[in-house]
């Protein structure tokens, strides 16, 4: 037994935002609980039955009271809604400078992949003060990526990508849970998130032996699967070039457009006929069953690395990161300030 914590640690920029909302709700809830309990207790004592045949006066309902206790709670709930929605937007939208990490859930483990090629199981090492964006999928059933100290949670759904992000503000070791029931060893699908000082993180990154960065592995796979026979860099192939595709808006046969994000790249690999790029024939075979979710992620990352170079952070390879991390540390570590932290902490440097 031993320790008895009553409140979770605050270790991300979102955590204090969530907690402030909690304090507000707690205040409202406590007020109304005391009001109701107090009124019941007072009335029950004050107006207790004194004789078996007493008949109390009839008190008719009052419109003023009814309106009062309809309108006031309604006003309060609208504050709750708006505030909750504001926090939710912050929780949902990763800042542009966030560092990309991929996660795959399967019964019953978390597989995490860094752009630099480090792969971890049930552990995630991240630097202090950098926003981290997780793109996640599942190989089997629904899981949920939950780090209580960060106040973030996102279901991980088979067949599609979901996203979560957080920006750690305190070095340490934090629980990682699977929060969506996923079968026999659901409670064993847990791990740790290590938030490290940036220097330590650099040391950790260079420590593990990797077989090349995620994008490099994706490129190898791209060649292995002979994707490069058709998808040529110079746009001379039978298929559209993938250079500068990521993040762009793609024109489709039949008139529509689609934003080339992770989900679109994934769909194009597994279900290539679903959306055909304008001006091309539907000749690509499906790779369903030929590649694992992890390999798809490598390919997605490769395509991303071919895309327009992002302002900061998303550049693959550890060199770029190494230059940046110390610079980012200063503003971020004192940035529990809240909502607008994302742009503020993103001095767009290359």
């Amino acid at each position: 037994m031993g320790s008895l914590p009553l409140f979770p640690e605050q270790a991300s920029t979102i955590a204090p935002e969530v907690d402030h909302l909690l304090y507000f709700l707690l205040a409202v809830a406590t007020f109304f609980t005391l009001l109701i309990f107090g009124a019941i207790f007072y009335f029950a004592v004050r107006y207790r039955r004194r004789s078996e045949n007493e008949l109390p006066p009839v008190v008719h309902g009052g419109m003023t009271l009814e309106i009062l206790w309809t309108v006031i709670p309604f006003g309060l709930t609208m504050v709750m809604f708006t505030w909750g929605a504001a926090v939710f937007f912050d929780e949902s939208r990763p800042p542009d400078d966030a560092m990309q990490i991929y996660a795959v859930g399967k019964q019953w483990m978390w597989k995490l992949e860094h752009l630099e090629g480090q792969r971890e199981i049930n552990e995630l090492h991240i630097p202090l003060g950098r926003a981290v964006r997780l793109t996640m999928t599942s190989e089997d059933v629904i899981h949920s990526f939950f780090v209580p100290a960060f106040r973030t949670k996102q279901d991980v759904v088979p067949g599609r990508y979901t996203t979560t992000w957080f920006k750690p503000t305190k070095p340490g070791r934090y629980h990682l849970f699977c929060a969506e029931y996923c079968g026999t060893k659901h409670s064993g699908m847990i791990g740790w998130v290590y938030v490290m000082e940036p220097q330590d993180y650099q040391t950790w990154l260079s420590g593990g032996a990797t077989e090349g960065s995620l994008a490099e592995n994706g490129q190898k796979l791209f060649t292995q699967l002979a994707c490069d026979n058709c998808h040529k860099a110079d746009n001379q192939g039978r298929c559209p070039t993938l250079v500068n595709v990521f993040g762009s808006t793609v024109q489709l046969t039949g008139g529509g457009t689609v934003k080339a994000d992770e989900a679109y790249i994934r769909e194009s690999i597994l279900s290539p006929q679903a959306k055909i790029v304008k001006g091309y024939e539907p000749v690509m075979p499906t790779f369903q069953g030929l590649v694992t979710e992890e390999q798809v992620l490598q390919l997605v990352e490769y395509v991303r690395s071919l895309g327009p170079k992002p302002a900061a952070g998303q550049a693959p390879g550890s060199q770029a990161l190494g230059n940046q991390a110390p610079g980012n540390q200063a503003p971020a570590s004192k940035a529990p300030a809240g909502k607008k932290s994302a742009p503020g902490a993103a001095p767009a440097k290359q």
Partner: protein
Amino acid sequence: MTGHIDSIKTYLAVLLALLSLTGLTTWVAYQPLGAFSVVAALGIATVKMLLVSLFFMHLRHSNQLTKLVVLGGLMWLGILLVLTLSDFATRGWTGVPGK
């Protein structure tokens, strides 16, 4: 309800209308109407539904309560469809996969 006995002629007319609408909806499906094709199909189906319920099911002569029950049922179907679509139709609006 017992009081209203519709004539055979009325019922025959409704039947004829229903059969012609069936022909119409089949024909319309082969016309190049684009997105309007679904609208036409559902529009015709709705008219047929109204014919069947108003005449064959005597909804015309039914009391307010029955009409309310039917409207309520359709409204609930609407709730189910619209709120479910509120998710599926707005997916991808944020540009963040899964949000």
